[in-house]
C-alpha cells in the first residue's frame, strides 16, 4: 500500500466536490494512515462511537495501537447480529452532532430482522461519487433518461434515483420492487405468485420503456432476465442497462450483453455496507472482477477455514469486507460470498473476481461415494 499524499482526515477529502478529484484522492490514500484516522476517531473517548466505546473494555488490545490496515483482524469478525439490535446511531461517532438526522438503511431482511446502518451525508456522497465513476467508466452518458426498477424504501440501492439525477444529470423514472415479498412467496411455496409479481413489475417496466423514451434501465439481474425473456425487443432497443443487487456470473453477463445488442451493460458488486466497481472483462471473456470503493471499503479473499489468512492471487476463498468510513467502522465482515482474489495494477488494494454464493465443504471427500 504505501502511497501517501498527506491526507490527514476523511473530512478534508470530503471537502473536495469534484467527483473525479475525489476519486483520485481516495485512490491515492495511504490505507494505513486512513485506518489510523478512522480507528482513532471511532474510539475517541469523548467523541467516538458509543457502540465501539462500549466494546472497547472487552478488547484485549488498545485500538490506538492499531497502526496498519492489516492489524484490523485484531477486532475479530464483525458480529452482524449486533446490527439487528443496536441503535444505528450508536455506530456513529458522537462527533457528529446529535440528534442525528438522515436515513437508516437496511440490508438483509428477506428471512428475518434486517441489519440496519445509518448513513451520514458524506457516506451517501461517497457511494454516489463511486456510482458516478462507474457510470462514466462504463460509458453511460450524462443527461439521459433512466428507469430505475429496483428495491427502494429501506434498500440503499433505491438511492440510485438521486445519485443518477444529482451527479449524472439524469431524468429518472422509478418503479418499486419488494424483494422481501418475493422471498416470502418463495418461502411459502408460491411460485405462481412469484411469476405473477414479476410479471407485474415487468409490465410496469415495459410501459415506462414504451411511453417515456428511456435510454438506460437500472434494475436487478433477475428482473432484467425476466424482461429479456418477455420483451427482448425492448431490451435490444435500450442504450444501456445497469445491474446490481444479486450475483451476476460470466454467463449471465454474456447473455445480458447479447440481449442489449450493443448497448452498455454496467454491473457492480456489493451491499449496503460497501460496493466494488466493475472494471470490465477482456473481449475473450473470463471471470468478472470488481475493485472496492477504496479506501472506505476494502475487500480481501480469505481462506474459508481461516478468515485471517488472505489467499494467493487467483485462489478462491471467502470475501471479507471492511468498512472504514469516518463515521462507520465495520471491520472484518465475513460475507456469504466466495470469490477469487483479484489484483489490478491500477488499484491500490485487492479486488474480487468470480463472485458466487459461499460453499463450505459439508463433509470429507470420502463422502463422495
Amino acid at each position, binding site marked *: 500500500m504505501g502511497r501517501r499524499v498527506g491526507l490527514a482526515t476523511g473530512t478534508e477529502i470530503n471537502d473536495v466536490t469534484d467527483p473525479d478529484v475525489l476519486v483520485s484522492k481516495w485512490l491515492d490514500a495511504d490505507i494505513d494512515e486512513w485506518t489510523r484516522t478512522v480507528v482513532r476517531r471511532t474510539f475517541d473517548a469523548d467523541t467516538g462511537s458509543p457502540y465501539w466505546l462500549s466494546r472497547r473494555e472487552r478488547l484485549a488490545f488498545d485500538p490506538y495501537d492499531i497502526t496498519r490496515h492489516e492489524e484490523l483482524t485484531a477486532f475479530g469478525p464483525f458480529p452482524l447480529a449486533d446490527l439487528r439490535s443496536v441503535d444505528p446511531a450508536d455506530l456513529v461517532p458522537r462527533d457528529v452532532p446529535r440528534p442525528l438526522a438522515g436515513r437508516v438503511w437496511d440490508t438483509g431482511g428477506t428471512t428475518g430482522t434486517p441489519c440496519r446502518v445509518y448513513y451520514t451525508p458524506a457516506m451517501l456522497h461517497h457511494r454516489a461519487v463511486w456510482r458516478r465513476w462507474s457510470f462514466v467508466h462504463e460509458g453511460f452518458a450524462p443527461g439521459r433518461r433512466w428507469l430505475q426498477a429496483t428495491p427502494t424504501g429501506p434498500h440503499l440501492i433505491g438511492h440510485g434515483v438521486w445519485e443518477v439525477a444529482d451527479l449524472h444529470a439524469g431524468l429518472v423514472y422509478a418503479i418499486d420492487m419488494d424483494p422481501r415479498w*418475493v*422471498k416470502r412467496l*418463495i*418461502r*411459502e*411455496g*408460491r*411460485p*405462481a*405468485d*412469484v*411469476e405473477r409479481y414479476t410479471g407485474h413489475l415487468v409490465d410496469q417496466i415495459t410501459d415506462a420503456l414504451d411511453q417515456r423514451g428511456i435510454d438506460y434501465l437500472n434494475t436487478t*439481474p*433477475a428482473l*432484467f*432476465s*425476466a424482461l*429479456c*425473456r418477455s420483451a427482448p425487443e425492448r431490451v435490444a432497443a435500450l442504450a444501456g442497462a445497469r445491474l446490481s443487487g*444479486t*450475483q451476476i*456470473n460470466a*454467463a*449471465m453477463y454474456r*447473455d445480458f450483453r447479447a440481449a442489449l445488442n450493443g448497448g452498455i451493460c454496467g454491473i457492480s458488486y456489493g451491499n449496503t455496507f460497501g460496493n466494488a466497481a466493475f472494471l470490465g472483462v477482456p473481449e475473450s471473456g473470463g471471470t468478472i472482477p470488481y475493485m472496492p470503493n477504496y479506501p472506505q471499503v476494502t475487500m480481501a479473499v480469505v481462506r*474459508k477455514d481461516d478468515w485471517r489468512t488472505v489467499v494467493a492471487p487467483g*485462489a*478462491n476463498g471467502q470475501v471479507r469486507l471492511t468498512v472504514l468510513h469516518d463515521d462507520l467502522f465495520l471491520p472484518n465482515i465475513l460475507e456469504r460470498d466466495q470469490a477469487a482474489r483479484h489484483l489490478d495494477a491500477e488499484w491500490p488494494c485487492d479486488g474480487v473476481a468470480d463472485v*458466487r*454464493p459461499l*460453499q*463450505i*465443504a*459439508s*463433509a*470429507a*471427500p*470420502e*463422502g*463422495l*461415494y
Partner: protein
Amino acid sequence: MPLGYLFGGGVGTEPHGIELYEASPLVRQLYEEISGYTGLTAEQILRGELPEGRERRQSAGTIRETALAIAVHDLLAEAGLRPDVVGGLSLGAMTASCLAGALDRKSLFTMLARTADAPDPRPDAAEEGMALAFVQAADAQSPPPWQGAADVHLAGDFGPVADGSQRILMLAGHRAAIERLAADSPSGAIVPLPGRNIAVHSPLRRPFRDFIAPHVAKMPFTTPRIPLLSCLERGELKTADEVRDMFERNSTDPISLVDIYEGMRDHDVRLGLVMGPAIPEGILDFPFPVVHVEKPEHIQLAVSTAYDLGIGFSGGDLGTWGH
C-alpha cells in the same frame, strides 16, 4: 436458462430423508407409494437398520437413496422448478433416467428391490473394497500409482477439487490390494472407503451384472423426455435402448462426474441442483453455480437462487410446503 439436476452415487448406511419426510405431506405420500413397490415400510426406507447380507443390504440402501432423490425432485417441482437436463452417477444415473421419463417409478423401485436377491459372494472369495485416489494437479500426466496393480481398477472420476489443486478418482478392487496400494503410496493419496465392501464399477461386479441383466432386458424403457446425460461416457442417452444399455453396463463400467457436468455445460446449464447428500457441498469444482439440496431449507435456497439467476419457474402452485 437451463436448469440441471445432478444425482450422486454410492449407498451409505446412514438414515437419509427424515427431515424432508417429516416436513412434507408430499414426501410422506411418495414413501407410501415406494413402500408399495418395494415391500419396505416407510420407516425401513427412512431409518431402519439395513438388513444383513451384502446384496440385501445394498438393495435397501439404494431404495433409501433413490427415495430421497425423488422426494427432493418432487418438492422442487412443487416449489416451481423442473430440470431441463439431468444426469447422475451410478445409482444416480438410474434415478436420473426415471426422472427424465425414460422409466416409470414402479419399474425402477421394483428393479432395486429385486437386486436383494443377487447372489452374495462365496465365503472364500476375496473381500472387496473401494478407495478414493487424490492426484495432485502437478502429477496429472504421471502414471497413476495403481497402474499395473493387480486387482485394483479405476472405477470413477469426480474431477478437480474446488481449489484445483488435485483431482479425485475412485478405485475398486480386492480390499487387500487396495490397502497395500494405500500403504505404498504417499500419505493421503489413496484413501480406502470405510464400509464399502462391494467393488462397484469394476470387473469384479460382473456376477451382479449377469444376475440383473435378464430383468433389465424386460424393463419398459422409453425415450427420455428431457436430455439425459450418461455417466459411462461423454454424451446424451437419446433412446430407450441407450438407456437400457447404460443400466446393463452401470454396475461394471467406470463412472465420470466430469462427463455429466461437462455435458451440462454443453447444454448451457446455468444452475445445477445436486440432489441428496451423495455429492457433498464445497468439495468439487463445477463449471456452473450449484446448490446442494437435501434438507427442507435447501428447497427455498434452490428456488431463490434460481430466481436470482433469472431461471423461470415451471408453473402453478402444487400446494404449500415448508412454511
